[in-house]
């Protein structure tokens, strides 16, 4: 049993706390610098637009974009495209997760399958998925299914790569424990391989949510008839730059919210991992 030595209640901080505080302080400064940077760029943009150095109807302006956004929210014009994009991302992610996680585990656990698929998966991961866009359109048309294909296509490879890496890095000792206790394959997969891989899986999900959004927007830009990407596309064609910018702001917020939510889930479900 370890004995607990009671610490004197002095204000002196230990080296660990100091390090943590220092890091927190740094984070805070980085955050502040980020805000300053953003404000400077937006300010400069606003000034050049207001002073007439650039044509505001051509380049839009922060104030114009905010006004357009407020208007879109006010009239409720924003919700249908936002929901449409979210729907694409959601369906795409469901398919990606349902297919990607079991497939990744399977490939990672089998040396033969891994050998067979590894080059393919890393090529598909590395090649920008947009080059496949014309082919996908040729194969699937430009309907809702084609959009879904694009979302899944762009989202699944980061997930696969991470799950495969995770499944291959499962500590040998964990598997030996399962073996010694004669755990059935399914239990080993569910109770040992999966949780051991979970940190990798969630990292993969976080990356693929980002890619799913990119896929959805790209699909909407090129072949959509709904969604935020479609709004950006049509508003730009109609020279309504403020509205286009407003849609881009919404996409940016969406990207941050989605990624942060998965990061939160990641922390919530891998709390047991000492590295968190």
């Amino acid at each position, binding site marked *: 049993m370890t004995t607990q030595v009671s610490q004197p209640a002095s204000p002196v901080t230990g080296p660990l706390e100091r390090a943590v505080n220092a890091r927190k302080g740094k984070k805070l400064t980085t955050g502040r610098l980020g805000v300053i940077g953003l404000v400077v760029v937006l300010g400069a943009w606003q000034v050049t637009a207001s002073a007439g150095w650039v044509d505001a109807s051509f380049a839009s302006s922060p104030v114009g974009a905010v006004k357009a956004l407020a208007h879109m929210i006010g009239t409720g014009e924003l919700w249908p495209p936002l929901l449409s994009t979210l729907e694409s991302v959601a369906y795409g992610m469901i398919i990606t997760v349902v297919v990607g996680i079991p497939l990744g585990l399977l490939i990672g656990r089998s040396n033969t399958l891994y050998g067979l698929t590894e080059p393919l998966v890393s090529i598909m991961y590395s090649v920008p998925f947009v080059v496949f866009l014309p082919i996908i359109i040729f194969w699937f048309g430009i309907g809702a299914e084609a959009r879904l294909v694009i979302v899944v296509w762009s989202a699944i490879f980061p997930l696969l790569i991470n799950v495969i890496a995770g499944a291959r890095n499962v500590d040998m*000792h964990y598997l*030996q424990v399962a*073996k010694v206790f*004669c755990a059935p394959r399914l239990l080993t997969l569910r109770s*040992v391989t999966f949780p051991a891989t979970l940190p990798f899986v969630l990292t993969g999900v976080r990356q693929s949510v980002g890619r799913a959004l990119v896929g959805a927007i790209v699909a909407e830009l090129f072949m959509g008839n709904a969604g935020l990407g479609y709004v950006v596309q049509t508003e730009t064609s109609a020279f309504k730059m403020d509205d286009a910018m407003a849609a881009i702001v919404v996409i940016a917020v969406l990207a941050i919210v989605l990624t942060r939510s998965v990061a939160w889930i990641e922390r919530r479900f891998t709390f047991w991992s000492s590295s968190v």
Partner: protein
Amino acid sequence: MTPPHPKLRVRDVEIGHRSGRKGTYAHAVDGLSFDVAANEFIAVVGPSGCGKTTFLTAVAGLIPISGGTLELDDRRIDGPGRDRSLVFQQASLFPWRNVVQNIEFGLKAHGRLDAAGRARVAELVELVGLGGKGDKYPRELSGGMSQRVNLARALATDPELILLDEPFAALDAQTREVMQEELTRIWQADGVQAGKTAMFITHDVPEAVFLADRVLVLSRGPAHLVADIHIDLPRPRTPSMKRTPEFLAMSDRIVDLVMAQSQIGKQDQPGRRVTSDDHAGVAAG
């Protein structure tokens, strides 16, 4: 001393590893023979790298033997079985399962996690002194606590033969002593487990003498049996026994046997492989 129907029968066992890029085959265990009677607590000592872990892993059924006979209850060991469990040197607890869930794992794997199984797990949590800590996760446990969980996990399935590979090696001296006493206490107290057969690997000779009914000394690798020593100390064993002249004499004798095997001395330069034709006084290279 060989009973007609031993629990575990080891005859001329040969185990090897294939390693390196060329897949060269090297014996880790060669010509190892002994018997273990039911309800015996066996301690195995031997020089580092002689093949103790390799042998235990084979008894657990994780690796095959390449020659000889290895039988448990007259049946050849050809894979892991529900009648055995293994306590690994590293705690190897699942970090995503809390104490209770870790101890439950074996029963769950056997499909025996019913009301009785859960009651048994609850009992074991108390028995290994972790009452009230059942919902802690491994990263919140000390080394000693982790090894208690590791032990409880192996006991939970109520195995015929429990294999322990230096379970206390990573602990500090103090915790180690405590755990040795705990193990004897658990061994003597656990109703279901009482009197089951155990094989315990250790580098610590006094630990072996304190715990075991018999101490087996293995040779330098590839391992074979060098000595088989009965420990006649009465049970229940108490820590004070460690200071009796009988205990010390027994320990000294075994230490000498092990030292004669390992020949760890000045001639053993670090990084150099000790082979059987190494003799004292080799010229410095």
